[in-house]
């Protein structure tokens, strides 16, 4: 079932309010909902929420034989499926357009941007590599699930620790976490995804991090994935709203600042969690 489009009064009110630079949740046009990041008991289990939007990401690792064409690289797979748990608008087994977009963007942002070093996942060339599996669960849809999923996935990779392995000749010894401290993944950079929504009326300025209603009423979305070092990984513009180059550059500057804030928040939360996990041994 396609989600019913918002009613006429909702549409008119939202457009009119946005024209006056008012948003329904009291945010500024270029203000994110403050993300909350919660870590689970396991390493690599992260729950991330933007207002009503909630996403869980989980990383698991296992050892596999690499494919013959890439004997020195580990493997990363991302599983994401929007279940009817997120909202009644989604059905199992029949991916909606939004789901396809989210899956492809997650693949681009988390995998193809080379955020996680794949060569460091190699244990024994051509014989054994780590296979990382990221599962993304969408729990509730309050708009902008893409940014939330990207953030959750990235934080899960940063939070994850794999067991230490030792190679003696052709033997691979896996040390249990009780024996030797697990190792973090080698992460080159941390891309964050930031989405802007454009509206049919050209006088209305675009808004960042659209809520569900804003997303439904938007004429187009612009998703920028970039890291705090001002490196753009992905830029995707869906919908056919004409945008001036100056406007795009202005939004990019905004996105850079937001990515820096997000980076600070993520680092602070990871440090906090890590400090809470230390067990002193005497």
């Amino acid at each position, binding site marked *: 079932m396609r989600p*019913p489009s918002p*009613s*006429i*009064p*909702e549409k008119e009110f939202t457009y009119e*309010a946005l024209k006056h630079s*008012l948003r*329904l*949740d009291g945010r500024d046009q270029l203000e994110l909902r403050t993300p909350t990041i919660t870590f689970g008991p396991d390493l690599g289990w992260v729950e991330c929420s933007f207002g009503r939007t909630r996403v869980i990401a989980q990383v698991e690792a296992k050892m596999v034989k690499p494919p013959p064409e890439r004997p020195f690289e580990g493997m990363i797979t991302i599983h994401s499926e929007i279940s009817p748990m997120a909202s009644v608008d989604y059905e199992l087994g029949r991916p909606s357009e939004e789901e396809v977009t989210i899956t492809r963007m997650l693949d681009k942002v988390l995998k193809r941007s080379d955020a996680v070093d794949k060569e460091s996942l190699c244990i024994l060339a051509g014989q054994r590599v780590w296979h990382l599996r990221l599962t993304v669960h969408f729990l509730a849809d309050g708009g902008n699930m893409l940014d939330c999923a990207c953030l959750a996935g990235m934080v899960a990779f940063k939070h994850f620790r794999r067991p230490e392995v030792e190679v003696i000749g052709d033997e691979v010894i896996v040390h249990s976490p009780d024996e030797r401290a697990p190792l973090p993944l080698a992460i080159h950079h941390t891309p964050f995804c930031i989405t802007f929504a454009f509206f049919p009326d050209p006088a209305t300025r675009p808004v960042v991090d659209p809520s569900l209603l804003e997303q439904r009423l938007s004429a187009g979305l612009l998703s920028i994935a970039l890291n705090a070092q001002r490196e753009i990984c992905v830029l995707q513009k869906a919908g056919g709203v004409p945008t001036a180059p100056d406007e795009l550059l202005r939004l990019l500057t905004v996105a850079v600042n937001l990515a820096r804030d997000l980076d600070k928040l993520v680092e602070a939360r990871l440090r906090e969690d890590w400090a809470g996990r230390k067990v002193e041994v005497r």
Partner: protein
Amino acid sequence: MSSIVLPGEYVPAQHVNLKLGPGLLQLTTPHASAAGLGSQPVVSIRAGALNHSANKSRWWVEGNSRRYVPAPQESVIGTVTGRSGEGWRVDIGSAHPASLDGLAFEGATKRNKPNLKVGSLLYARVSLAHKDMEPELECFDAQTHKAEGFGELKDGFVTQCSLQMSRLLLDSKHFLLPLLGSRFPLEAAVGMNGRIWVSTKEMKQTIAVVRCIEAVDPYGGGMDEAGVKKLLCRLES
């Protein structure tokens, strides 16, 4: 005193003149596990707090959910999603779309029917809610043929909340709507399906109402009266 029940639990509801409210079901052919609970035991079909009236004749389960299940005589807010024959199909947030007859309006005749577009907002009453049939709506009182406040809602804004919040707002003793009404004039229609329509003069006031409802909603924040007053002061500045 109320107790918590889960779906499938037997409820000790027995009275000569038993009236069952939402969330309860009387079994006509009880399962073997219901031995000793009478010939037609009552089972809960919803999770929540079990309540009963003082003389134990009325029983109901009070819980919170976000999915609306239509029940007859409840007033709801729906969006017109299309035409079907003589009437309209209306989305009221239930599992199936409701149907609204073209003649179920005050003063409507075969020639003179209200002009509703796709996307129009309606305040209507559920006239038929059978588990095997699509729910049916009406926009008038079937006895008097008067509108009684039902009909198309123009302008304003609709916000969604949990079903418990909409029931709270219908309670005349609840603080929120009188508190907001003392600050500025407002018009509101509360649908039992978790949709609330508000209309005020100023756009900012409507946004304030929407944010207050969201903050007070037990599913979201569960803010109390003092908190709402503070929030309003902050919004006004």
